[in-house]
């Protein structure tokens, strides 16, 4: 409000000197439209204001697409080197060891906890989900690991080496969280 008043005064002051008395210069009516959104101010000294920044990306999974479509079909797709046979548990178009192209292969749906943690804090996107468990899963016959959520266990119950199995979301989100791991059950009862 006050800024608008100042601008008006300033604009009006100059032209009157040059204009015949009683004639209003036409450009006095030129002004930016005011907005009532205002600013969110956290502090005035120094001036700290809120600024929002969002982006919608057209994110392409490109050559890794089969991994995500695989998850929607209940499959875990890894990459196997066509030349040296190195087996990655993650999608990689080329072998990190020898540089050759890889081919897709299906990972076993059971593995073991190679390492893990329970997060009690996190990034903004996942704060609401805390506490949650992250784990790296090892598979028989596979050279590398897979990062995943470990569900259904508390910090005290998780052990390195414990057998786990993959579960898939019924409704795919086309995110790596379409798969998660739970403890492998024996004879119908959950492993503590």
């Amino acid at each position, binding site marked *: 409000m006050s800024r608008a008043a100042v601008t008006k005064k300033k604009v009006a002051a100059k032209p009157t000197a040059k204009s015949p008395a009683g004639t209003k210069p036409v450009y006095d009516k030129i002004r930016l439209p005011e907005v009532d959104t205002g600013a969110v101010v956290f*502090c005035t000294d*120094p001036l*700290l204001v809120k*600024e929002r*920044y969002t982006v919608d990306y057209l*994110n392409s*999974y490109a050559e*890794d697409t089969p991994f995500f479509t695989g998850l929607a079909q209940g499959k875990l797709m890894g990459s196997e080197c066509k030349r040296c046979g190195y087996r*990655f*548990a*993650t*999608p*990689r178009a080329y072998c*990190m*060891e020898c540089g050759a192209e890889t081919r897709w292969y299906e990972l076993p749906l059971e593995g073991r906890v*190679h*390492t*893990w*943690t*329970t*997060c*009690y*804090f*996190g*990034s*903004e*996107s*996942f*704060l609401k*989900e805390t506490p*949650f468990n*992250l*784990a*790296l899963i090892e598979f028989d016959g596979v*050279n*590398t*690991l*897979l*990062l*995943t*959520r470990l569900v259904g266990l508390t*910090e005290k119950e998780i052990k*390195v080496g414990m057998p786990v199995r993959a579960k898939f979301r019924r409704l795919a989100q086309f*995110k*790596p*969280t379409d798969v998660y791991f739970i403890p492998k059950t024996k004879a119908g009862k959950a492993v503590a």
Partner: protein
Amino acid sequence: MPVAAHTRTEVRMRPVYMISGGITKFTKADPRKSFRKMVKEAFDYSMNDCPRLTKDRIDGSVVSYFSDHFTRQLMAGIMAVDMCGLVPKPTIRVEGGGATGGLCFQEAWRHIASGWLDCVVAIGFETMSRVNTWKGNEFIALASDTNFDFPVGGFYSGYYAMMVVRHMHEFGTTPKQLAQVSVKNHRNALNNRWAQHHYDLTVEDVLRSPMVAYPLTMLDICTMSDGAAVCILASEKVAEKVCDNPVKVIGVGQGSDAMRMSDRPHGAVPLLKHEDASWYKGLKYPGVHSFRAGRMASKMAYERAGIEDPREDVDFVELHDAYTSSEIQTYEDMGLCRYGDGGKFVEQGHADLTGKIPVNPSGGLLACGHPVGATGLMQAVFAFWQLQGAIAKHNAGDATIQVKQKRGRGKRGMRGAIHSHAGTGTYVTVSILESTSTNGPASKARRAR
């Protein structure tokens, strides 16, 4: 002085000296200053500390800041450089996650070693308080694979927690040993006026502080901060003219590893000169318990510097302790102890100020904070002051954290290693600095009295 030629590739490199340094005191949030002002303050500090250096002698600059998200400004580098009045001279930005500052130092080194320029300012900064901590954690986690790792629960403390859980499984490292790193570094910082946190801690304090990601508590983790640091590097010709007590950069090394730690191999340890393959029989390396990039960077830097055994040939280390766990893992990567012995190394006091090889006499990232782009350069500034024997000069007369050269080490000058490290060990730099005062800074200080 003859050019050190430990390997063929370095035959044509020129010797490079650090001639000055400056930092701002890092703080959790400094909304009163823009990154440009912070940089200018650090730059002025370094110019004042080297009065014979005039701006016309400076040939160019290298700038490091990690995240465009934190600055909310692309090309922030040039804004820092124009604030320092270093335009229209050459400048370039370097970036490599947490190792950004270390990479900046080495890029400035390359500018001079190659013979291209004679005097280069390395500038680093980060203003992380411009978002809330949880958003900052998100920005940092965007430096993990955004298709495969970030969406699972992107959180760097979680990633490092998984790495140390495996270290604990492989080697029997304990949360208590992690806590001892925090206690040690905060204790050192009690006598560093540049440190952000002056905490007199016990192991219990660390263990009892809020859990962030098992087994890492709040006191196991460094603070996102605002701050800037500046190092000035020069050729021998310029160093001799403008600086009474320059510090020589005698070796730089760098290493890297796969972005996704799940993709890291499980193979053999690349050995340092003093190590024996029999020590590591059956150890699958690096897996996720160790940083192969840190080992590669150390190996290369030691070879270039002619270091046979870092336990004897280095007098102190300023290393990247963003987490207490990564300090323990880094002892091993740098060969300060065997793989698996990192926990015992801190437990037995070897990394203490009075230990075999003082690690983070400044208090490290844990006590000083981690404004990413500035951090690696802050380590260089602290190492520079150590090697000049000038800690007291820059620390309000307090020389408690001044490290002394090991006895009986022949004619070599006092040496310090600086180690800068990015997300889960993707980029790591190690640089070895050596004092040039013939009798070592300790005896020089005695003469002055």
